[in-house]
């Protein structure tokens, strides 16, 4: 099939960007979206033109590096997949596809379709871990975890940190990502010691960069891992509690 692409081109972080139109010819159904872009880039290079910059790594939906706004939808029209898992069979011959980078204050465009997502790392650095400062790890089966908690924590842990939730949100909010990272640890026994500090720190770091939640639900539709907004509800509750519990922990509550 032959497609017309309207792609956002921007030389650098401070340059003004614009859409440019390219032809993608002989696109096969079974190609992934990124392979299709690779082909376009090869043609551009052969022509001596600058290829389109975009991020990708694993190309199997597990690393969270890829991410494009395709026809106004984060990661494109297919539910529950990252851009790299989107196949060209989702498109029809002759179609025009518009490709834009994620847009948010926290995700400044670096070049073309590549954005800086280090704001998500800031949230992780604020508490998205469990401290194990000494000794050997305990045997995994020594710590009992109730099955529902393990399952729900696993659902949350599926987040690959791609930032599609922020991109899809009309408010540029980072709640889905943050709440998934919080729930992943806060639901497990190993996460309890730092639960309230983690919640307070991660939420407040999130608020340095991102917008607020208006419960639109666009994030869970865009999320390649189908993280539900239920986790945001849990985060809202834990944040309120953290304000009280953290004081109790130092004997001030």
């Amino acid at each position, binding site marked *: 099939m032959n497609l017309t692409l309207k792609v956002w081109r921007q030389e650098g972080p401070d340059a003004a960007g614009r*859409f440019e139109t390219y032809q993608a010819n002989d696109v096969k159904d079974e190609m992934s979206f990124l392979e299709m872009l690779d082909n376009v880039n090869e043609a551009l290079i052969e022509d001596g033109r600058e290829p389109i910059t975009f991020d990708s790594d694993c190309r199997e939906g597990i690393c969270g590096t890829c991410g494009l*706004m395709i*026809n*106004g*939808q984060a990661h494109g029209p297919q539910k529950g997949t990252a851009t790299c898992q989107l196949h060209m069979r989702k498109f029809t011959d002759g179609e025009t596809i518009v490709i*834009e980078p994620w*847009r948010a*204050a*926290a*995700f*400044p465009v670096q070049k073309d379709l590549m954005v800086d997502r*280090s*704001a998500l*790392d*800031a949230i992780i*650095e*604020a508490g998205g871990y469990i401290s194990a400062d000494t000794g050997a790890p305990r045997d995994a089966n020594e710590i009992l975890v109730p099955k529902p908690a393990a399952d*729900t924590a696993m659902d949350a842990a599926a987040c690959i940190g791609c930032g599609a939730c922020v991109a899809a949100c*009309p*408010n*540029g909010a980072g709640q889905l990502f943050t709440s998934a990272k919080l*729930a992943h640890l806060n639901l497990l026994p190993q996460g309890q010691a730092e639960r*309230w*500090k983690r919640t*307070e*720190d991660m*939420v407040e*770091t999130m*608020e*340095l*960069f*991102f*917008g*607020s*939640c*208006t*419960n*639109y*639900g*666009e994030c*869970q*539709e*865009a999320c390649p891992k189908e993280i*539900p*907004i*239920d986790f*945001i*509800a*849990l*985060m*809202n*509750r*834990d*944040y309120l509690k953290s*304000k*009280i519990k*953290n*004081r109790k*922990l*130092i004997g001030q509550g």
Partner: protein
Amino acid sequence: MTATKEPPALTPDITSRPIAERHRRSPFPVVDLYRSSVGKKWVMALTGVALMGFVFFHMVGNLKMYLGPVDFNHYAEFLRELLVPILPRTVALWLMRIGLIVAFVLHIHCAYGLTVINRKARPTKYQSPRDYVAVSWAARTMRWSGIIVGLFLLFHLADLTWGIHAVNSEFVRGEAYQNLAYSLDRWPVALLYIIGNLALGFHLYHGTWSLFQTVGSMSPRFNPRHNPIRRGFAAGFAILVAGVNISFPIMVLAGVVG
């Protein structure tokens, strides 16, 4: 593992620029909460519940209109006499009014604060059209429906509480039924009441659905994902309140009451 005085500092690896300032934590959790967007959402939700209670009882009380002038005016008088003789006349009414005013002010102030945050969080809009999947029309228009309800409220107060002459020239203090019937008999006014209440209905629909999420009642622990009861309750509540309220101008115009 105890609380620190401020959120952790950003490391040099973090190259995205913050849109808000890092604050030292206040000794009073309420201050921190009111500063944070998650906390502001709590305020929106809790004041929202108070305001929902108000519109519900306002609607129920107004149903007395169908019983005629005696019952309606009696009810209006009852509100002034509430808790007499424990409290002097109209004191209980004023306490409720003050509570409502506080709830309104906080609700609007938080909505404003959150809107400002959200504008900052996406300074450059998408340059191509977005294709929204989930968001409902009611949700997307919350700010507008909120503003319309607010303006309508001012008109409604001028019309039937303060009895400003330019708005309601036949206003007589204490004659609640007659004032209402006169007002709604003018079709442009009736139309305003219908528009105001339609906006209220949409606002209530998303607000009611949303508040459960904000106060965390849909946590994965009880995981009723996309809870149909919550949707149903939100829709039912919005339709009930707006529907009954809209019936008043229609019935007055149709000559059924008044």
